[in-house]
Structures are given as structure tokens and as C-alpha cells.
């Protein structure tokens, strides 16, 4: 296992951030975990590091409901900057919402790999990371 995976968590829920980070730290393959409280903070970071491959995340766990800039608004901006991003980034939409409207909307965005309903269990994360490595996406 290569331990060079950058993970980005975008969520205003500090408890979620805490539990996610704690869980992910157990994976040896993960090099770094960065967290943002809203979409705008995350987007600012992306814009600052457009060509900085080392700093850009490999996987983003993006929450929907956030102040200032929510998940969907972040995706709108991301689609605009996507061609300039110097790295292949896998984005998971994460929400506690089981609302079909949200799920359908997320699935329509091609840059989003999947929609994950909170809470994310450890086994689920393991499967996601394992699968991505197998597919050679990482």
C-alpha cells in the first residue's frame, strides 16, 4: 500500500469532521487529511493550489448542507475550474439527507462518483479505498 492519499473533508459539522478524521487516520494508505467548514473555504483552497499536485486532494467527501457555500454550489464552481485542476480528484457527496431530491440531483452531476448517506462506517470507507486502488484510480 502506498501511503500517499490526500483526503479532503468539507463539512460544517465538527462532530462529523472529528469522527471521519479519526476513522481515516487508521488507514495506513492515507497521507494527509484536510477539513473545511464550508464550500467556500474548500474552493478557496482549491484555487490556491490548482497546479500543486502534492497539496490537492485525491478524494473529497463533500457535505450538502453548509453555510456560505453548500455542496451543490461548490460543485457548480468546481465544474468551472475542473479543466484547470492538475489532478484527477474523486468526489463523494455525503449527507445525512435521505431526501430523494438531493440524491437525484447529486447523481446528475457527472463529477460526483457516488452519494453516501451519513453516518459512514469504517467498513464502508475501507471498501471505497480498496475498490479505488483495485480500479487503479488512485
Amino acid at each position, binding site marked *: 500500500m502506498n501511503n500517499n492519499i490526500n483526503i479532503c473533508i468539507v463539512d460544517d459539522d465538527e462532530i*462529523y469532521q472529528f469522527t471521519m478524521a479519526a476513522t481515516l487516520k487508521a488507514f495506513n494508505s492515507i497521507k494527509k487529511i484536510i477539513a473545511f467548514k464550508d464550500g467556500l473555504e474548500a474552493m478557496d483552497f482549491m484555487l490556491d493550489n490548482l497546479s500543486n499536485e502534492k497539496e490537492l486532494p485525491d478524494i473529497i467527501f463533500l457535505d450538502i448542507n453548509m453555510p456560505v457555500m453548500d455542496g451543490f454550489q461548490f460543485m457548480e464552481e468546481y465544474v468551472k475550474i475542473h479543466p484547470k485542476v492538475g489532478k484527477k480528484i474523486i468526489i463523494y457527496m455525503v449527507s445525512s439527507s435521505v431526501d430523494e431530491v438531493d440524491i437525484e440531483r447529486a447523481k446528475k452531476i457527472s463529477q460526483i462518483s457516488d452519494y453516501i448517506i451519513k453516518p459512514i462506517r469504517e467498513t464502508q470507507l475501507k471498501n471505497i479505498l480498496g475498490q479505488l486502488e483495485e480500479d487503479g484510480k488512485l
Partner: protein
Amino acid sequence: MVEKHIENSSLLELLEYTNQLGKIGVFKFDALTEDIYWNDIMREIHEVDDNFTPTIQNIFCFTEAGATNDKLKRGHLDTLKHDTPLKIEHEITTARGNKRFVQCTTQPTFSNGKLTNILGTVFDITERKLSERELLQRNKQLNFAEEIAQIGYWEWDPINDKFIWSDNLYKIFGLEVGIEMSLELLVSRVHPDDKEHVQQVTMDLFETKKFKKFTYRIIPPKGAIKTLEVLGQVECDDSGNIVKLIGVTQDITHRIATEHELTQKNQNLLLAENIAKIGFWQWIPEKDEFIWSENLYRIFEYEIGTKMSMELFSARFHPEDLEKINQNVNKFMEKGVFEKYSYRILLPNGTIKVLEVLGQYITPNEKNKQQILSGVIQDITDRVDREQELRNKNKLLNMASQIAKMGYWTWKIEEDKHIWSDNLYTILELDPNTKLNSEIVLSLVHPDDKKTCEDAMKSGIATKKFPKFRHRRICKNGAIKTLELSAEVILNKNGDIVEFIGTTLDITDIIKNEIELLKANNNLKESKMKLTARNKQLAEFNHITSHNLRSPVSNLNALLGMFKDPTYEDLKEELFQKFEIVIDHLTLTLDTLVESLKVKHEANKSIQKLSFDETLNKTKEILAAEIIQTNAIIKCNFTDVPKIVYNKIYLESIFLNLIGNAIKYKSKDRVPEIEIESKETNGKVHLSFKDNGIGIDLKQHGDKLFGLNKVFHRHPDAKGIGLFLTKAQVEAMGGTISAQSEVNVGSTFTVTLN
């Protein structure tokens, strides 16, 4: 007698006797002496007495001057010239003035070429001549009769092909009288279609030697086709060969046409009888004799020609009508009065027919007291059926108009007469015998609608069109009915109005139903709106549970999972702190939800008249610290609407939240300024809160502005609860809340209170 004379007389006497018997007059003219001798018969014929001495001068006075005399004289001269005897018949007038026909024969005697004497006889042929005349006359008459009867006589000698035709036969054939006839000529006149028939008849005739009457058509040179009927007899010689045929030919063209016409007329009559279902009858009661027309048999369904009797006749009577028929027959027998009446007959197949009978005496013979009745019977089943149908339909129409609450009326303009159907009287609860004119009709109209009615009537007359209109009427029992009138105008030849015919529909119930329906519809609309609002609230609540409740619960789950996992043993203390945060958050969310539900249910509690000024002052007291801290300026204008009836807690909450927000999200660069205003537009009170704060990007957040836990700024106190509750309170009171905002300029929240 004759024999006796012969015995007793000499030859001369015999001659004289013969002369006398034959009435032969003898005369002798002596050319030398010019003496004329007449014997007694001569004198007798001319009725002259013995003293008469005939001379050359006086003998011609017996004959008529002119033609006869000239003829006589010429005859004599011819005789003298040619020495030939003269035989001439002529008329004489006797000395007594009687007219006679005589036959005169003269024989001159010459000696040495010189006339010596003339000997002559005169024979009285009056009787013969008269017979001849009569015959001629008869013949003429016969010809005339022939002509009238259109008959011609003929004889035919087939061996020599010789015909003898009477004049009229020529006329019938359109041929010149007297021309020589031949079979060829005859056949040439026969109609082409009948030639074969005539040939066949002729052939049959020669074979059977019997003449059969036959008819054929001819085409005369001029005029139309004629139909001829031929009758004849055959005469044969000893060897049985036909030598002669004689016969009569009659032109029956007219007869055939008449016959045809008659047949046609008879057929028409039968047809008419059949169509009208009428039968004729005669009855002699004493003899029980009936004469029935064919159609009567048909009506009674007896075979045509069956000998009728009272027994057969009455066998068809409908049992229920027997008494009625008997009564009528008796009445008639006793009183001799035949009144038209109808009865039913029952036919063997079960069909019932209704008949109408009419009769009268045709020969009331007092002497032998034999009564003959004659009359007609008409099958009126169809008529009765139709009448019944009409009655039924009328009944149905009446029923329909009663059900539809419809009445019919006619308004005769000139007489100003209103004729109403029974149901119209019923609808307006009037006595059906009430006579109506416009004044009475108008008097029944509701006072408020009187002008409408008068205008409609006037307009109807003026424009010749009747406008459909509604009006109310007051019934006798005081009830008010709404009526709808529509009508058509009937004009005369000159285009003047004769009358209006129309209908009046009682639409009282319809209108009542309409109103109720409208009400129900409005209720339905209101319910729908309420339901839509409730639905929206439910959807919102669903959203809240999906987001706002699920996330803390999932956090709890995640923390619990870590707490149980020995891997995170060293994080336990931190985990406990996190548990506390989540539980606090969950508690707040649940409290807010409970609060919002309470707001929805308690909207109508503690409603009272509130002053905006007082409410604002109370809010300022609560926010006193923040106002002092930020130097916030609060302006207000409640002059348009100073007071409102509202839920006190909610109004205070609205003021507190909106003013609080305006201060909380103030711009760093500006002193907060807040303007509050109350206004009334379209009957609704609007309350606006305008600030100069940081503003919100409504393009991005507009749909979430009033959502639970929605925050738009990284403000430490932003919890997304204030506006959520404000909206719940405003909506619970039947109002709305909206916002206008520009980032870094300010926001305006407008609350429509009711």
C-alpha cells in the same frame, strides 16, 4: 175472281183487264191529225175525267216544268230522230194534284221515212218508287247507324280475292270509299305487332272453317291507331271449301279506352277504399241479407264473397262492446235513427280493431215494410292509436314541464291577451281561471324587477325580438320565485307582430343550487389552499426530519461506534465532549421543532389589538445592550397603520428576530440603521424592516432563507433558527414573509400580516 173474269171476257177485254190490273195506260199519237188517244187507265193515272181531250199542248202540263219536261221532250225528239223506243221514268202531278211516278214507254212508227204515229204506254210505278225511296232511306239510316256504331260490313271471296265493303268500313280504314280492296291492301293496314296474330287467325279459319271473333289493330293513313273487332261467318261449297266469308268489323278503340278508364277508376276506388280502410255495406234486416264491399271483408278478415249473416257479423264483435252494439242496433230498429258510433272487433288472431260505423235507410218502403240499410264502416284503429299516442305524449309533456318547472304562454298583442299553460298557473300559484292581460301579468312581478320586465316587453315589440331575461315574481303565498323567459315572435304577412309564444322556466331552485354550488366550490378552493399549505408544511417538516434530525443522530451513532472500539481508547475523553455537543444540538433542534409546531397550533390564542409603537419599544428594551454596543439607529413610521389585531407573542417575536438580525449581521463599515414601516395596500397590512447590513446573496440562498438550521454567514451565533420560527409564526397567522437583499448594501424583510 180472276178466273171468273177470264172466262167471261173476250181477248180484248182480257187485254184491257190486264192493262187495268197492271194499271198500264195506253196512248196513241197520230202524226197526221195530231190526235192523241188515251185509254181509261191513262185517264185514271192522270186523274182526268172523260171530258178531257189530250192535246200536244196540254199533255205536258202534268209534268213539272223544267228538268222533267226537258228530259221528256228531249227523249221524244231522240225517239223521233233515231227511231228508237223511249223508256223514261218521271214524276207527274195529276189533275187532282196528286204526285205519281210513272214509267213511260213510246214506240214511234214510220212509213216511208215519215212518222205516222207514236204508240206508248204509261205505267204507274208510284208504289215501287216509294218502296225504292224507303229502301234508300233505310240504307242511309243503316249507313248512319253503321257510322255511329263504328261498324262496317264486308264480304270476301277468297278464291278470287274479291271484297265487298260497306262505305263505313272504308271510312274506318281511312280509305277512299269504293276503291277496289284486296287482301294485300287490307294486310298493309294492320299494325305490325298484330300482323302475325291476324295471319294465325286466318290460317286457323281456313283449317277449322269456323270464324272466331278476334281483335286487331290497324294504322289508318291519317290518325291514331284503331282497334277493330271482327265477327264473321264462313260459307262452304259441297266439297267443304270456303267460297265466301261475310262479317262485321267494329271499331272498338273508344270502347277499349273507356273500358280501360273504367277499370282504372274502379281500381282507384278500391285502392282508395283500401287506403281509407273504409268498407261499404247494405243490410236487409228482415231477410238477414248483407251486401259487403271487398274491403269490408278485408277489415273483418273474412274471405271475400263469403255470404254474410248477422251471426257471422256479430261473431267478430268484441265481447266488451256487445252491449253497446246491441243498444245502438235496437235504438235504430225502434226509432229508425242511426247515429254514428264506434265499436271494437276481435279478430281470430287476437288483433283488436276499432271501427266507426255510419248508416241510413235507403228505401224505407212503407208497404212491404222491408227496410234496407246502407252505410260505411271505417277502420279507425290507427287513428285511435294515434290519438292515444298523442294523449300520452301530451301527458308526458305536461309531466316533463311540471318536472322541469316550465310553463308555456302566448301573448296576443292586439287584444293584449295572455294565454298560459296549466303548469304556468301552477308555478305562479294562480287560479287557472284567472283572465290575464299585461297589467295583471306585470302586477305579479317583484317590484325591483318591474322595470326589467316592462323594458323587455317594450323591446320585444319594438325590435320584434324577445330577449331572454330573468326576473323575480312574488307568489300569492309570499314566496319569491326566479323565472327565466324566452320567446319567439309570430309575425303576419305584413311583418307585424301577431303574438309572442314563449316559455317560462322556474329557475328558483337552479339559482339556489348554483349559489350553493358556488359556495361549495369556494369552500373547496379554500380547503384546497389550506391543504396545499398544510402539504407544504408537511414537506418542510419532512425535510427538517431528514436533515436536521438525521445528522445529529448519525453523529451520535458514529461517536458511539468509536466509543465502543478499543482502537480509539485514548480518544474517550474527547468523545465524551463531542457527545455533549451533539446532544445539546439535538435538544435545540427538537425544541425548535416543538416550538414551530406549537406556533402552528396556537396561532389563534391571545389575539388582541396591538400597537406597533408599543411592540417596538418592548423590542428595544430587550435589545438594549446590542443597540448601545452598535450605536444602531432605529427609525419607524406607523402612521398609516398604527395598530393591528394579532397574536401578541408572535408580533413581539417577529420584531425581535428581524431587528435582532439586522443588528447581528451589520456591516463592519457602517453604523446599523433600521427603518420600520407599516402600510396598508389591497386591504392587507404590510410591515417592512429595512437595514444597511451585510446582505445575503439571495440568488444562492433565497430558497433556504427561512429554513431550519440554515446559516449563511460564518457568524458564531448563527444557528438558522430565528427566521425559521418567524416564518412559522407569520404563516400560522395567515400571512407571508419575503426578503429583498443586496450583498454589502442591506436587506429588507417584508411581512404581510394578514
